[in-house]
């Protein structure tokens, strides 16, 4: 758990750094200021902001009371008693044959075990941010280092890197993922690691390709002619030009990872139950859908939560791409 908390800090720091960088560079700030004119983009930013608030509220642990497990602000807000069984959204009674009065109001109802669905949905936010964010944080340096080295130095370095990623890539992805999860064991951190190890190849390929192109550019050649060291050229001249691609890719990969978590939960290699994740909710909801009467609100709220997050991320990455690279805007 401590490691996961560190990761949460890392994710926040990385997001902040990226934001600062974006606001300082004129290219990005123009793209971002373009957001204001587009209702879709504003909506996406608002959703992300809201989710971040929830994730932050779920990350700060309050001083524990004696005899109680530690609670986050979010836990505190939802500190309501466990119901005996499920209830529909806004219902006043449980769905038992002899209805029992509920112990508290449940805006989105409760699931089969009497857990508040809204609470469980909000609990998933932090997990999703960690899976998306931490994994992306792992992917970026991996892909960057290998891609830059391969693209810049070429020859045997390139061959070696290409060999490694071809081997990785040719193992059926899902098998590799499950195998790594098996080796690492179950848990949030392990899942981030496994997802990271299996999803760096796509970006690495792109980085390598771009580096190959950039290496032939005039300013790189002239920098080399001036006798600059390779490290300096890579950091000063090539890396900044890769940043737009990296940030767009990171946004997209974030959303892909959130969706991947659901599949992993279905394959029974998801995060433990107490972590609280949308994948687990959807997996549980599959069974609840066959109940009589149908419990649909569990599935619906998890799906909507994922939908909003992924949709917003996609919209933002589209907007960034449009803002940065007008040639991609379409004729």
């Amino acid at each position, binding site marked *: 758990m401590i490691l996961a908390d560190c990761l949460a800090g890392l994710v926040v720091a990385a997001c902040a750094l990226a934001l600062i960088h974006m606001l300082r560079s004129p290219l990005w700030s123009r793209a971002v200021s373009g957001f204001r004119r587009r209702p*879709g983009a504003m909506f996406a930013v608002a959703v992300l902001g809201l989710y971040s608030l929830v994730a932050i509220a779920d990350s700060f642990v309050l001083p524990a009371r004696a005899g109680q497990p530690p609670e986050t602000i979010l836990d505190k807000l939802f500190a309501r008693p466990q119901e005996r069984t499920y209830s529909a959204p806004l219902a006043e009674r449980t769905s038992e044959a002899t209805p029992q009065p509920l112990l508290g109001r449940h805006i989105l109802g409760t699931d089969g075990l009497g857990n508040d669905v809204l609470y469980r949905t909000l609990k998933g936010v932090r997990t999703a941010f960690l899976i998306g964010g931490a994994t992306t944080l792992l992917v970026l340096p991996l892909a960057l280092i290998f891609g830059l080295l391969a693209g810049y130095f070429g020859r045997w370095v390139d061959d070696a890197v290409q*060999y490694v990623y*071809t*081997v*990785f*890539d*040719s*193992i*059926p992805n*899902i*098998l*590799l993922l*499950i*195998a*790594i999860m*098996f*080796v690492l064991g179950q848990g949030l951190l392990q899942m981030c690691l496994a997802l990271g190890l299996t999803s760096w190849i796509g970006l690495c390929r792109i980085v390598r390709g771009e580096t190959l192109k950039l290496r032939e550019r005039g300013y790189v050649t002239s920098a080399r002619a001036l006798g600059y060291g390779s490290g300096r050229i890579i950091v000063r001249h090539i890396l900044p030009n890769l940043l737009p691609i990296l940030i767009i890719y990171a946004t997209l990969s974030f*959303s892909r990872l959130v*969706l991947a978590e*659901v*599949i992993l939960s*279905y*394959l029974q290699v998801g995060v433990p139950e107490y972590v609280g994740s949308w994948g687990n909710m*959807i997996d549980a909801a*599959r069974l609840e*859908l066959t109940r009589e009467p149908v419990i649909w609100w569990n*599935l619906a709220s998890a*799906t909507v939560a*994922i*939908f*909003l*997050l*992924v*949709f917003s991320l*996609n*919209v933002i990455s*589209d907007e960034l791409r449009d803002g940065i690279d007008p040639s*991609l805007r*379409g*004729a």
Partner: protein
Amino acid sequence: MLRYLVRRIFYAGPILLGVCLATFALFYLSVSPEQMARRNISAKNPTQAQIRDWLVARGYDKPLQEQFTRHARSLFLLDFGKSDSTGEPIAQRLRQGAVPSLIVGSGVLFGSVGASVILALFVAAFRGTYVDRWATVLCVAGMSVTVLVFIIAGQYLFGKLLVWFPLAGYQSGIGGLRFAVLPILVGVASALGANVRFYRTVILDEMGKDYVRTARAKGVSEPRVLFVHVLKNAAIPILTSFVLSLPFVVTGSLLLESFFGIPGIGSYMVDAIDGQDFAVVRAMVFLGTVLYLVGAVLTDVSYALVDPRVRLE
């Protein structure tokens, strides 16, 4: 061309060897042979003697490097051996599973590429209008819903309400096709969002090119511009994504197969992982790799076929 092929085959060797090694290492890191035995012996509480016999019968009692060389050698000779858990020949099971996987996989692949290309052309034809804008929003929306929800919704709509297709199951032969329709529909629907969006970008990219204007200036009709000129050029990125997903046609879609009860290779793979069946897992990984490499060659070949500027060397 010949030189190209020879070189690719020459490169395939080390990659396959690397994959074998990775599989071997990952498997032994995640599970010990004894655990495998315990999982696969059907007794409620296998005795030590039974475990020992199980390992001896499958050669897992030998030193690691001897096991590796033996496994790698037989795989390279395309001898997949027998399943650790059921003892049936893996090649036989693969043959049985290939047909259903192929039906569903190719249905999904061709269906989604076909539908996506048509929709993308349609959307591209309306570029700049709000048809285009809403279509883009819908695509992103489609990408934001998990496959599981598509499956659940598809089963509910077509299987429970409309009663058009069986919820799940499979039969071999022509009668089995109706079992494949629903998974294919679901597979296509879930892939549509991302595909249409990607193809739209590609097509719009091409539509902005000068040769399209030239064609129009010649008085070529709009459908002809789209289908002959634009599509032929847009085919290159589309082909890449198409050919790269070819291995999955054979290895099958894991989720669709296990949810819809299609006895394909995908669900075989899941069972093997679930059952710690190392023999099957290493065969499947090897096969997947071979298919991937063949797919990569096919991509290059198809480039050369579509784009006269590309030469294989």
